[in-house]
């Protein structure tokens, strides 16, 4: 059941077009076709003949012969069907049915023949389908191009804005009150900006230094997403950079760059630790930071295998003269929390009066931003629990296979204890070429195709959206692929509910001004 070749010959026996569907040598096919006109009888009422080895089934079309060369055991009924289809196709592609006309459209005919016969086997197609296949009008491609175009446009907008911001920051910089570090940073910005300003050149981010450049560059514009003042350019670059990395616009930018054929080392998945960095600026002479890190492992089918909160209270003093102080705190009285003071602290004072002071009252607290950015640790606490109600955010993921697609629906539920900020839920996906189709989502999403992770981000979870869901579709995959889901978020209240009530200067005088920050961050929050 094999068609060896489909050919068009002129009446005089010249081979105009021939497409072979099985491997055969040129000499063989030419020989077969050369024999055709000689074997062609006249005045017969049937249109096939056989030689020792092959069968020719043909059909005269005006001044041409359309010939199928098949093996002798080929199914004549099927071959005739094929021949009929081909004979309908030829006039579709060739306006004039003569040597010249066929010569002009030879390639189109070959393409059409290819659609009808595949490796010698007949395909079940109609003339209309063949035409459609040959026209290659693809909705998907249009869509793809449209998306690409819009991304490019968007990127251009971003570019303009950034350019103007950089202008501003340059002016700021020129005022000359910034450290050397900054100047180095902005230097980088300039170079990278000058590169991105011509995105079509496609060479914007050389992968060698591109990463660093990119981060610095993004770091410099935290305002973009958070609406802060351009003055923030003075912030240490390490600050909120990664936050911005997560933002939608940048992703699109990267996407479009990728689409333009740029190789981008995209490592947009920040480590949890980096998120701990303070968001605000240390402008007050005394800053007290209470931070809790959350290590939670949830089971995918409910339940909790690990829940661990580690908190620190740290003190940062800008000026030496403010060093001689004591800190009075107030805790929420949570019995599950065990506090431990720094060995240099006066334990009795703390256990009796909740005041943190050094054992030696004449020694000042160490000072300066030059030290550990987090300041001096005064107090540590730890809480472990098996109580599921303590979990701030529970994730429920339901992959289900239907047909040749997998539907995954995910929902989160946040406890009323906290208002969570910058929630990012990262779901690993099977290797995909394009983004999964998102059916429904509360919040925003982006797809990191390199690591094939889908990130679902919700800027703020408060009483208005204690629960939310997302649904997306991917090609069939095992459900285990979608785990572990990791979650990042921050919150401004803590489990310990620790508050600084007062700062007591040991030398007397008015209590100095201080600022207090409370922060809950995730260190390792996973649904296994």
């Amino acid at each position: 059941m094999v068609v060896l070749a489909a050919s068009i010959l002129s009446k005089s026996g010249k081979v105009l077009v021939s497409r072979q569907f099985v491997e055969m040598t040129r000499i063989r096919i030419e020989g077969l076709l050369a024999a055709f006109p000689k074997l062609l009888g006249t005045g017969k009422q049937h249109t096939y003949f056989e030689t020792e080895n092959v069968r020719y089934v043909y059909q005269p079309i005006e001044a041409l012969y359309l010939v199928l060369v098949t093996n002798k055991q080929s199914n004549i009924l099927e071959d005739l069907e094929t021949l009929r289809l081909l004979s309908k196709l030829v006039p579709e592609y060739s306006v004039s049915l003569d040597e010249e006309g066929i010569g002009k459209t030879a390639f189109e005919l070959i393409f059409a023949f290819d659609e009808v016969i595949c490796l010698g086997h007949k395909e079940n197609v109609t003339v209309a389908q063949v035409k459609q296949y040959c026209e290659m009008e693809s909705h998907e491609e249009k869509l793809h191009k449209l998306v690409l175009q819009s991304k490019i446009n968007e990127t251009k907008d971003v570019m303009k804005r950034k350019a103007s911001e950089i202008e501003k920051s340059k002016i700021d910089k020129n005022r000359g009150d910034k450290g050397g570090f900054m100047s180095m940073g902005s230097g980088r910005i300039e170079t990278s900006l000058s590169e991105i300003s011509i995105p079509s050149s496609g060479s914007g981010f050389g992968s060698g230094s591109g990463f660093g450049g990119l981060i610095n560059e993004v770091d410099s514009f935290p305002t973009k997403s958070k609406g802060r003042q351009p003055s923030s350019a003075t912030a240490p670059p390490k600050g909120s950079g990664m936050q911005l990395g997560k933002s939608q616009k940048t992703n699109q930018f990267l996407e479009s760059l990728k689409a333009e054929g740029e190789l981008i080392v995209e490592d947009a998945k920040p480590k949890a630790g980096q998120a701990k960095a303070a968001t605000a600026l240390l402008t007050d002479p005394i800053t007290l930071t209470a931070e809790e890190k959350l290590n939670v492992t949830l089971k995918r089918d409910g339940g909790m295998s690990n829940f661990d909160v580690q908190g620190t209270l740290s003190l940062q003093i800008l000026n030496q003269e403010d060093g001689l102080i004591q800190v009075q705190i107030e805790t929420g009285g949570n019995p599950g929390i065990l506090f431990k003071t720094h060995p240099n602290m006066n334990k009795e004072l703390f256990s009796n009066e909740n005041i943190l002071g050094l054992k030696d009252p004449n020694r000042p607290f160490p000072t300066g931003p030059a030290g550990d950015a987090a300041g001096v640790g005064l107090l540590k606490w730890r809480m472990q629990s098996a109580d599921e109600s303590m979990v701030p955010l529970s994730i429920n993921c339901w992959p289900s296979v239907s047909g040749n697609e997998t539907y995954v629906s995910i929902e989160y539920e946040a406890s009323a204890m906290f208002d969570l900020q910058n929630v990012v839920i990262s779901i690993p996906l099977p290797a995909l070429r394009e983004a999964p189709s998102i059916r429904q989502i509360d919040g925003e999403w982006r797809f990191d195709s390199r690591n094939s992770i889908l990130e679902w981000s919700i800027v703020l979870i408060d009483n208005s959206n204690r629960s939310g869901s997302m649904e997306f579709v991917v090609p069939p995959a095992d459900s285990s692929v979608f785990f572990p889901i990791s979650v990042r978020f921050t919150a401004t209240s803590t489990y310990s509910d620790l508050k600084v009530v007062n700062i007591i200067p040991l030398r007397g005088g008015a209590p100095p001004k201080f600022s207090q920050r409370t922060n809950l961050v995730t260190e390792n929050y996973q649904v296994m």
Partner: protein
Amino acid sequence: MEKSCTLLIHFDKGTPAIANEIKEALEGNDVPAKIDAMKKAIMLLLNGETLPQLFITIVRYVLPSEDHTVQKLLLLYLEIIEKTDTKGRVLPEMILICQNLRNNLQHPNEYIRGVTLRFLCRLNETEIIEPLIPSVLQNLEDRHPFIRRNAILAVMSIYKLPQGEQLLVDAPEMIEKVLLSEQDASAKRNAFLMLFTCAQDRAVSYLLTHVDRVSEWGELLQMVVLELIRKVCRTNRAEKGKYIKIIISLLNAPSTAVIYECAGTLVSLSSAPTAIRAAANTYCQLLLSQSDNNVKLIVLDRLNELKSSHRDIMVDLIMDVLRALSSPNLDIRRKTLDIVLELITPLNINEVVLMLKKEVMKTQSGELEKNGEYRQMLIQAIHSCAIKFPEVASTVVHLLMDFLGDSNVASAIDVVVFVREIIETNPKLRVSIITRLLDTFYQIRAARVCSCALWIIGEYCLSLSEVESGIATIKQCLGELPFYSVSEEGEATDASKKTPQANSITVSSRRPAVLADGTYATQSAASETAFSAPTVVQGSLVSGNIRSLLLTGDFFLGAVVACTLTKLVLRLQEVQPSKVEVNKATTQALLIFVSMLQLGQSPVLPHPIDNDSNDRIVLCIRLLCDTGDGIRTIWLQSCRQSFVKMLSEKQLRETEELKAKAQVSHAQPDDLIDFYHLKSRKGMSQLELEDEVQDDLKRATGEFVNDNDDANKLNRILQLTGFSDPVYAEAYVSVHHYDIVLDITVINRTKETLQNLCLELATMGDLKLVERPQNYTLAPESSKQIKANIKVSSTETGVIFGNIVYETSNVLERTVVVLNDIHIDIMDYISPAVCTDAAFRTMWAEFEWENKVAVNTVIQDEKEFLNHIIKSTNMKCLTPVSALDDECGFLAANLYAKSVFGEDALVNLSVEKQADGKLSGYIRIRSKTQGIALSLGDKITLKQKGGG
């Protein structure tokens, strides 16, 4: 292994595109120009140019193009370029296209993905394919069936590559999974096909788990299922029980293609009568239900095969097969009749003849174009029935005799020949046939029929009443005497006004003709009636048919009439007691003879009586006037005897042919014997069966070359250069159907390295060199095998000549060694064939080219000379041996052969032994094309000397 060729496009050499122009257009941004340039580049490549410099241009400027047509053309380009070096390694630059292919496999446009996958099916280089595999696999899960279809095929072809199993270890599992979830019919078929070719056991298990649903599957899939069943059962016959059920269920499939395939599968699986019957029934149904002539003819071929292998079963279906006669196509009818005639048994003969008779009647009523020919066919069929089963003759002969007066001369002749044979072989019917013949004689219109009928009357009117009525009938048909009188002159001139036209045609078309016995005649009444417009009585029959024929100048008929009357009168003398009556009849006959002679000399007719007829009539007159016993026996008995002898010889020949046929199918002494009870099938042995299908395809693609034994091969070695030449070359020439392969061994006989050694070949005649020769370097005293392909496009003697050119390090100039010419023999292309006498004559009359070769030989014996010519030209002698038997000093024979291109070669040999013992005469060759006539003539001139 020779490169395969995937497409051919006619390339007009008038507009050669220059590589530079193409390059420029490719580098530009104008898409239509790019497309155009790509097309040109592909055409140049197909035409044998290599264009190596274009590759990089294409990689740089065409690969990134977004235009779909450009991409598709690019794939075609990649398909035809040389991807490996001479040692079969993939060229390093090919890696450049990998990235593009990969992008295409992930292209948002599904059609680009599809065509790229399809392209991969044609790719053989693992190095290129390997990096693409993940992308191919991704496409297996695409949502477009179009992609999945092609992806599956791509997986299949990758898996089929030599290292394919390593590249895609789990391909069968994957495809099996796909098959389970696939919905699209085509994709499903492809998936099944993949399992079928790559993991047969999986395909089988899939089939067996879904047995119940096979009948619901798509047509395409069902076809593959049948193919699978055939293959499985060939290798493992014990399994077939499982599948018969599937086939039976598919016999009711809606698609006729599937039904047809089912029947074929059934036949190949089983020889059980039920299975064969079911298959035959299916074929018969298709025969009736399909309106397409091609289908009918091929189905008839299948039935014919069944007939030869399972005659007993087919006998029962004879009436079903006969129904195919309802088709108006003559080829179909002929094939049907051929099959039916061999299935006739005493049991069904009556039914068959009844049906044939009905068909004959039908031809009388309808006025269809081909009715005459069809009737002739039917009459011939009935004729052969009657010979096999003489008892039916009585029922048909009278019916057929109605057609003696048929306006279709050929069928009328068939009838009269039939009657002639029946009357001899069936003595019981003689009386009734004669009576009937005498009754209907006046209806006969054609001269040839007339003369044959007259012979019958002359021979078989035995009783007094028959003889008398015979004479009376002839007289009646001759009309009133004289044929021509002065008073009729006016009338006759009127008539003659018409006749000259008719005759002028006859005269102009008269040319040398070959008689049935092989004699080469320049003029013959008999032959003329056979080829040119047959002489048929026009208009009314009032004046008698013989008379009208005579008046048109047919004196040969006149001679026949004279002979018949003479015979009748001679017989009358034996049976009529009354002398008066006899004398009366004699005088009347004499009067008729004289009138005919008179007519022959009259000026009204366009030409006077010819000498032969004149002599014959005069002889008859003499005979009636003076009869002797010797002559009487000759006239009354010898004629009949020789006729009987002719009939018996014909029968003998037929039985001999049958015997010869039977001989062929006899088993060899050392053949395997299949015991029916042990093996449940007969006929072909296991080995033969297994390869049947595979070979069919291989033969078709030309992959399958039947190598003759090597001893034969050595006989055909040609020495091309001398032994003392610096380069010795010899060639083995093998001629396949349409191509000649030269296997040339080149040996360096010197102590130096020969560089740039090139075998330059050129051809004369209808031969074409397929590829350009390559350069080689030949180390001292080493040898090299070079292959050259030459394409042949018609049967003609050709010459291949050439040089070997090379350089050595110390001589700057190129040295040339001239090769011996290689003559390609026409004999390799023609093979003995058989055609009917009539066909031979028609072709002889039609063909335009004649080559006349005078006989010039040392052979003294005519017979020996004929055999020599037959042997040296590889032709078949059509003239029966019996006709060549006796020593009479001259010999005429027709030879026939067919070329592989389907051309006919006709040869007529007429020789006469001269007084001095030498042979003289001519050999005439006729063919449609000049090539054969010339080449064959040359061959004969060369060979005819013979003997010495």
